[in-house]
């Protein structure tokens, strides 16, 4: 428990550091948020009007002052308002969080569903035709860009075969609609992780299968299924769990591309529009959200590893 509290306390300096970096990057990168607000009329807007908008957004103040004000508000739980929509950043996050959570969880589910059995099969029958086939498929999964895979999946399964919907996230259509809308994007976003997990499961299973205790188990007369599942897999699961935890971070960043290709609402897509529009409060708010999720998921992974591996202790 003390460990958990300590790790949670670490959250704050990490997030603060991230915020400093993002804040600096946003101000270094060329692109002026006020310029992006002015639309078709932008060349014709008199300087006084631009200055007034800049002042209204607080962008006329010195950088350190802007930063201190922002952090002060964040500590009070106020992430500010989006420059473009004038709505609170938290409202944006709330409106888009559920869809991304669905996508990431379904993505993990798909990668485990595909990756781990594939890894076990190739480990149990190494250097056979099955092993080579899974190797080839996972290489494709690892190398194919998510964007390309997504467009391809859309073209085949939504446009030609019409078995899955082409766009949207099914919100408002009930759980079944949500699942139907998740099938393609979750597979695409999970493909990379599935390939990784598969390779990792294979090597750690091979490792485990060559250990003395496996030979002992075999010689005790246990069936090979029991040996594989109960003895080898349990030990092989430790590195795999560690990897699955970090994959969550990958899935979140992958959501940027997948949400755009599948026209889903979500935090990734929101991040893209926020960066394109130089909507500083929205970018900073989303970085905080992404950062917290990744840090928390790492913590959860560590706890799970501690639970399945008696050698790891957190105290």
């Amino acid at each position, binding site marked *: 428990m003390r460990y958990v509290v300590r790790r949670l306390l670490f959250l704050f300096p990490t997030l603060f550091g991230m915020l400093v970096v993002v804040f600096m990057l946003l101000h270094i990168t060329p692109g002026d948020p006020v310029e992006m607000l002015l639309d078709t009329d932008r060349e014709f807007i008199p300087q006084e009007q631009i200055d007034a*908008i800049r002042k209204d957004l607080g962008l006329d103040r010195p950088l350190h002052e802007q930063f201190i004000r922002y952090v002060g508000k964040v500590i009070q739980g106020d992430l500010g308002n989006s420059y473009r929509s004038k709505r609170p950043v938290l409202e944006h996050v709330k409106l888009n969080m559920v869809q991304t959570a669905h996508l990431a969880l379904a993505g993990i589910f798909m990668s485990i569903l595909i990756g781990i059995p594939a890894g076990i099969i190739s480990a149990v029958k190494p250097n056979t035709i099955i092993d080579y086939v899974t190797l080839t498929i996972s290489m494709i999964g690892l190398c194919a860009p998510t964007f390309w895979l997504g467009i391809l999946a859309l073209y085949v399964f939504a446009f030609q075969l019409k078995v899955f919907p082409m*766009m949207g996230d099914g919100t408002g259509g009930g759980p079944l609609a949500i699942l139907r809308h998740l099938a393609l994007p979750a597979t695409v976003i999970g493909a990379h992780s599935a390939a990784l997990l598969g390779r990792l499961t294979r090597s750690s299973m091979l490792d485990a299968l060559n250990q003395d205790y496996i030979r002992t188990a075999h010689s005790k007369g246990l069936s090979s299924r029991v040996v594989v599942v109960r003895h080898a897999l349990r030990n092989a699961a430790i590195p795999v769990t560690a990897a699955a935890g970090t994959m969550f971070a990958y899935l979140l960043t992958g959501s940027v591309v997948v949400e755009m290709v599948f026209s889903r609402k979500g935090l990734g897509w929101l991040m893209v529009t926020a960066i394109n529009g130089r909507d500083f409060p929205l970018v900073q708010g989303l970085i905080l959200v992404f950062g917290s999720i990744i840090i928390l998921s790492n913590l959860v992974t560590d706890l799970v590893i501690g639970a399945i591996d008696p050698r790891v202790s957190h105290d």
Partner: protein
Amino acid sequence: MSKRFVLISVLLIVGMLVSGCAQKTAAPPAPTTAPAQPTTAPAQPTVAPTPAQPKKLVWGVAMGTNCLDPAYQTGLPDSNNLVNIYSAVVKHKPGSLTEVAPDLAERWDVSPDGLVYTFYLRSDVKWQYGYGDFTAEDVKYSWDRMLNPDTKTTGATVLKVINSIEVVDKYTVRVTLKVPTPPFLINIANTGGALIVNKKAIEERGTDYCLKPVGTGPYQVVKAETNGTVVLAASPDYFGGKPAIDEVEMRVIPEESVAVMALKAGEIDFMIVREPANIAALFKAGPDIVVNGDPQSSCSTYALWLNNTRKPFDDVRVRRALTHAIDRDTLAREATEGLVQRRADSPVPPALFAYTEDVTKYEYDPAKAKALLAEAGYPNGFKITVDSMNTAFNPIMLTIVQQYWKQVGVDLEINYLDRAAIRQHQAEGNYDITVSNPTRAEVGLILDYYKCQNFPPGPNFSLYKAPDPICDLMNAQATENDPQKRAEMIKQIQQQITNDVPNVLLWYVAEITAARSSVKGMIPNLGSWQTRFYLFDIVK
């Protein structure tokens, strides 16, 4: 012991998170939109020819909406919805870029000196959602609001010529300008910021107004989401009668190639196309898809803006050489998949007032280009950089231009930047060459891109310094009341600009849209940021 406890609590937390998510989605606020899942077109057996079938149009766009308030609109999704929700005092005559038609004003007088505009307003206009009758007070409120610095609007600069607005009686409003402005009516017809809003609704709805606007237009907002969709329904109160299409849904599709698939599959009916590869794909899509992009209705000139204050572009011979070096007819055809056949010769698009063909023309002549470069002291050419976004026609156009210029010894380096970075560079005048297609439905505003005083910050992207008499003429035409005299002045300006070639004019950019062939009544008007859905119909 403690480990098992940790494991269980972790599982519990995950379980709670998952069930929390499930609960949230199980109870959506209000199922206003139909789930997007008509996987097969429901046209075949079930739909009998029932006349009462409501007509629905779905259009795809790459971004979500931000704010449906004329004062704070930003981006195409906003402006396209605005012209369908609100009415203007006058609007464009459909299909014309130079004539206006009545909207909220039935008729109007202009004083002989061009300073006083009296609008006689309709007396049968009602605000949506029961906000009462529309009166002259609403016009005064709307425009005063845009002119008030405290509003901090992001647009509506064309209203700045207004000196005062006076309510004469309930349905008459008198507007006095600071200087005579012949295109005043056209400008207010063009500008989203000049649309008329309701004071009570804006004050009552406060920060919610962006997503819950109230207008007097043909459609009212049923549902609008921040950074998301907008669903419009025909307004029962509209004075112009019920539009043919009952419901218009905007669907956000960030990837244009996905929108193309959706259009082909019939999931959407209408979209705006920007990428040449997608234009090509839509042309090949068969009789179900119609691609529109008539350059005759363009109010936009696509150009390479050479920075005239930097070497070597300070020498007019170099600018002429670079124009001669490109076969711009071929360039336009190749880059636009044949939608545009001809180059631009004048900075003013043909659909606008006082366009003339009688300007200096630059034919494709690489030998002459080389000779001009040698004369200017660059016999071996030079190396130069262009700043551009890598969207729409820019990549293909720049790649072709690069090849043409290479043949006369000019080495073009292409520097792709995102929109925000390009805008900042343009505001600072910090580039050798920048790419832009100023889109303005009034000739005076097109000329603003060449005015001497409009150096950065301002629209004169070439930092072009016209001869003094022409500078004066550019200012004078803006207040010239006699149309014939004004046309003569604008012709002279076009001739001077084409003589000085501050920029390399490429072609007149048509706004390209694609639709299912069942969508009728699309009038090429003002480009895609003012798509008027009330003029559309769907005939299956």
